[in-house]
C-alpha cells in the first residue's frame, strides 16, 4: 500500500477532486433528507455525469454521494419521523421522540458523530480487512442466508413495543407483502389478483413511505396537535456534551459499526437491516432498556453508526469479489465498468492505485461528513422546522413525489395512499409498522434462502442435514434462539422482580 501513497496524495490534493467530494457529500445529505429519494436513485442520476470524468474523480464523487445520502436520511427521521432513506428506519425509534421532547439538536449531533465514527470504522475495515472479511462472506450459502433473515426476524421480539403476538402477526403480514409478484425461484406470479402493476412486486421505498408518512400525518391530524412543531434550535455545548457521552460508550459505537460492516459484506442485506440489528443489540446490551423508543441517544447512535459503517462493508465484496453488497454498490460497479474497470479479485493488482485512492477518499469523506453534517444539518433542519399545518401538506407532497420518482410510476402513488391508509388502520388496532416492515425487508432474503436450500438439499438427498447442520447455520440458529429468548427472559425477570418488590412492601406494611 505504501507504494501508492504518492498517487493517492496527488489525486486527493487536487482542488477539483476535493471540491467534488465536498459537493457530493452535501448533495448526498440533501438527497438523503428528502423522504422517498434514495441514495441508489441519486447515484443512478449521477452516473451519466461521470462518463466524462476520470475514473478516480467519478469514484470520489459517487462515494461522497453514497456516504452523504446514507447520513442525510437521519435528518428527516429525527425531525419529521420519516426516514429519508430506508437505512434510517431505526433512527426514527428514538430520534423522533428526542426531537419531540425538545432535544432535536442533541439527536442530530448524536447522529452526525455516530455516522462519522461508524463511517470511519467502515472505511478502515474496507481499507485493512478486505481480504479477511471477504472470506467470511464466501462461507455463506442459501441456508445461512435463510438463518440470517430469521435472525433479523427474531428482532420482532424486541421491536414489539406492545404485544409480542401482534408483533409476530405484523411480521407475518410483512413477509406476505414481500411475496407479492413473481416468485424468485419458482417463477410464478403470486397474489397479483390479475393486477399488472403488482407483478413486479411492491416497491420497498413506496411501502416504507406509506407505513411511516401517511399514518404519521393522520395521527397528527386526529390528535389535534397542529400547533405543535419540532423546534430545531442550536444549543451551546451540545457537540461537546454528546461527544463526551459517546466516547464513554466505546463498545456501543464499536459493536454497532462492526454489525454494520458485517451486514454490509453480506450481499443483499442493506443499511436498513444493519441499523435494525444494531438497534436491537443496543437494547439488549443496555442497562436502561426502558429508555429505548422514548428518546434514547444510544438508540440513535446505534442505528446511525451501523448504517454508515454498512457503506464501507457493502463495498468489500464489490472490490474484492466483484459482487455488490447493496444496490448503491451495484451502481458504483456500473461506474467502474463504464471506465473499463472490472471489479473483482484482480482489481487490487491491476488497478491498485485507483483502489487505494478511492479507499483513502472514502476515509476522508467520512471525516468531512462530521464537519459538514454538523454545519448543514442545521439549515436543512430549519427548512423542516415549520408549523404542523404547513408541514402536513409538505410531508404529503414529498411522500407523493418520492413514491412517484422511484419508478416514474403513478401506480406507486396510488399504492402508497392505499397502503398508507391501511397502515394507519393497523396502527390503530395495535399493529406497529416496524415488525411489518422488517418482514417485508427480510422476506425475500428468507424465501430465496429457503427455496434454494430445499432444492440443493433435495439434490444431495438430505434436506434436513443441509439446512440444520452446517456450522455457520448452527451459530446463526443459536443466535436466533438467544435473540428470541433474551427479551422474554428479561420480561420474566422484571415481572418476578416487580412481584418480589410488591410482596416485600406488603410484608413491611
Amino acid at each position: 500500500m505504501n507504494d501508492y501513497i504518492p498517487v493517492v496524495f496527488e489525486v486527493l490534493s487536487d482542488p477539483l477532486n476535493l471540491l467534488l467530494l465536498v459537493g457530493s457529500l452535501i448533495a448526498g445529505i440533501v438527497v438523503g433528507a428528502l423522504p422517498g429519494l434514495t441514495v441508489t436513485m441519486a447515484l443512478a442520476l449521477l452516473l451519466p455525469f461521470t462518463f466524462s470524468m476520470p475514473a478516480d474523480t467519478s469514484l470520489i464523487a459517487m462515494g461522497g454521494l453514497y456516504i452523504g445520502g446514507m447520513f442525510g436520511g437521519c435528518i428527516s427521521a429525527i425531525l419529521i419521523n420519516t426516514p429519508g432513506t430506508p437505512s434510517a428506519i431505526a433512527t426514527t425509534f428514538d430520534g423522533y421522540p428526542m426531537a419531540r421532547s425538545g432535544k432535536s439538536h442533541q439527536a442530530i449531533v448524536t447522529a452526525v458523530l455516530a455516522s462519522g465514527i461508524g463511517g470511519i470504522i467502515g472505511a478502515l475495515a474496507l481499507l485493512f480487512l478486505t481480504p479477511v472479511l471477504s472470506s467470511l462472506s464466501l462461507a455463506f450459502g442459501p441456508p445461512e442466508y435463510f438463518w440470517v433473515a430469521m435472525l433479523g426476524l427474531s428482532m420482532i421480539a424486541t421491536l414489539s413495543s406492545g404485544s409480542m403476538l401482534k408483533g409476530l402477526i405484523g411480521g407475518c403480514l410483512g413477509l406476505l407483502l414481500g411475496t407479492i409478484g413473481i416468485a424468485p425461484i419458482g417463477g410464478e406470479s403470486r397474489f397479483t389478483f390479475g393486477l399488472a402493476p403488482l407483478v413486479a412486486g411492491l416497491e420497498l421505498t413506496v411501502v416504507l413511505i406509506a407505513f411511516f408518512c401517511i399514518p404519521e400525518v393522520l395521527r397528527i391530524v386526529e390528535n389535534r396537535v397542529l400547533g405543535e412543531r419540532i423546534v430545531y434550535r442550536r444549543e451551546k455545548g451540545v457537540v461537546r456534551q454528546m461527544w463526551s457521552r459517546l466516547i464513554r460508550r466505546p463498545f456501543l459505537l464499536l459493536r454497532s459499526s462492526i454489525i454494520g460492516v458485517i451486514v454490509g459484506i453480506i450481499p443483499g442485506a442493506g443499511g436498513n437491516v444493519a441499523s435494525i440489528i444494531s438497534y436491537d443489540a443496543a437494547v439488549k446490551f443496555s442497562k436502561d432498556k426502558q429508555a429505548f423508543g422514548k428518546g434514547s441517544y444510544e438508540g440513535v447512535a446505534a442505528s446511525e453508526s451501523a448504517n454508515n459503517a454498512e457503506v464501507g462493508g457493502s463495498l468489500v465484496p464489490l472490490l474484492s469479489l466483484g459482487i455488490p453488497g447493496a444496490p448503491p454498490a451495484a451502481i458504483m460497479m456500473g461506474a467502474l465498468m463504464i471506465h473499463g474497470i472490472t471489479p473483482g479479485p484482480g482489481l487490487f493488482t491491476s488497478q491498485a492505485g485507483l483502489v487505494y485512492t478511492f479507499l483513502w477518499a472514502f476515509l476522508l469523506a467520512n471525516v468531512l461528513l462530521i464537519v459538514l453534517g454538523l454545519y448543514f444539518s442545521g439549515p436543512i433542519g430549519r427548512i423542516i422546522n415549520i408549523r404542523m399545518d404547513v408541514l402536513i401538506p409538505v410531508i404529503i407532497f414529498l411522500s407523493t413525489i418520492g413514491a412517484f420518482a422511484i419508478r416514474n410510476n403513478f401506480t406507486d402513488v396510488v399504492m402508497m395512499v392505499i397502503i398508507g391508509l391501511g397502515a394507519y388502520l393497523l396502527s390503530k388496532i395495535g399493529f406497529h409498522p416496524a415488525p411489518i416492515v422488517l418482514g417485508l425487508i427480510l422476506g425475500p432474503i428468507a424465501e430465496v434462502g429457503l427455496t434454494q436450500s430445499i432444492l440443493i438439499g433435495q439434490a444431495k438427498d438430505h434436506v434436513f442435514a443441509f439446512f440444520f447442520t452446517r456450522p455457520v447455520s448452527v451459530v446463526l440458529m443459536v443466535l436466533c434462539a438467544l435473540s428470541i429468548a433474551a427479551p422474554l427472559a428479561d420480561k420474566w425477570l422484571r415481572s418476578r422482580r416487580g412481584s418480589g418488590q410488591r410482596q416485600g412492601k406488603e410484608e413491611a406494611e
Partner: protein
Amino acid sequence: MRLLNKDVISAFVLLAVSVVVYLETAGLNEMSAVFPRYIGLLLGALSVIYLVFSLLKPSAKGLWEGTNKGRLAAAAAGIAAYTGLIWLSGFLIASILMMFGFISLLGGRESRRPLRLLQAGAIAILVSGFFFVLFKYVFIVPLPAGILFGA
C-alpha cells in the same frame, strides 16, 4: 362487555387472509408456493391465538375513541383527492391546490383571514414550484402532466 370488538374482528380478517393465502398458493408450483404457504399457516395459527385472547380478555378501548373523526376523514379524503387530482390536472396544479387546501383548512379559523390565505397561497406556489423544478429539470423525473393537459 362487547363480544365483537376491534380485536375479534381483526382476528377474523387475519384468519380470512391466511385462508386466501392457502387457496392462492394451491395451484402454484412447489418452489413458488412453499414460502408463502408456510407463512400463511403461521399467520392462521397466530390469528387463532389472537382470537382466543381477544375473546377471553377483550380490549376496553374502542377503535375511534378520542379521535376527531371529522378531521381524520377530511385528511384521508384530501390525500385520496390529491392522488385523483394529479391524474386529472398534473402534478404542479394538484400540488398547489392540495397545499393551499390543507394549510387553509388545518390552520383553523385564523387561517381563513385574507392575509393568511395569501400566505398559504404563496407557500403552496413556492414549495410546489421549487420541488417541481428540482425534480423535473434537475433530477429529470417525468412528473405526470394530467389527462386534462393531454398526458
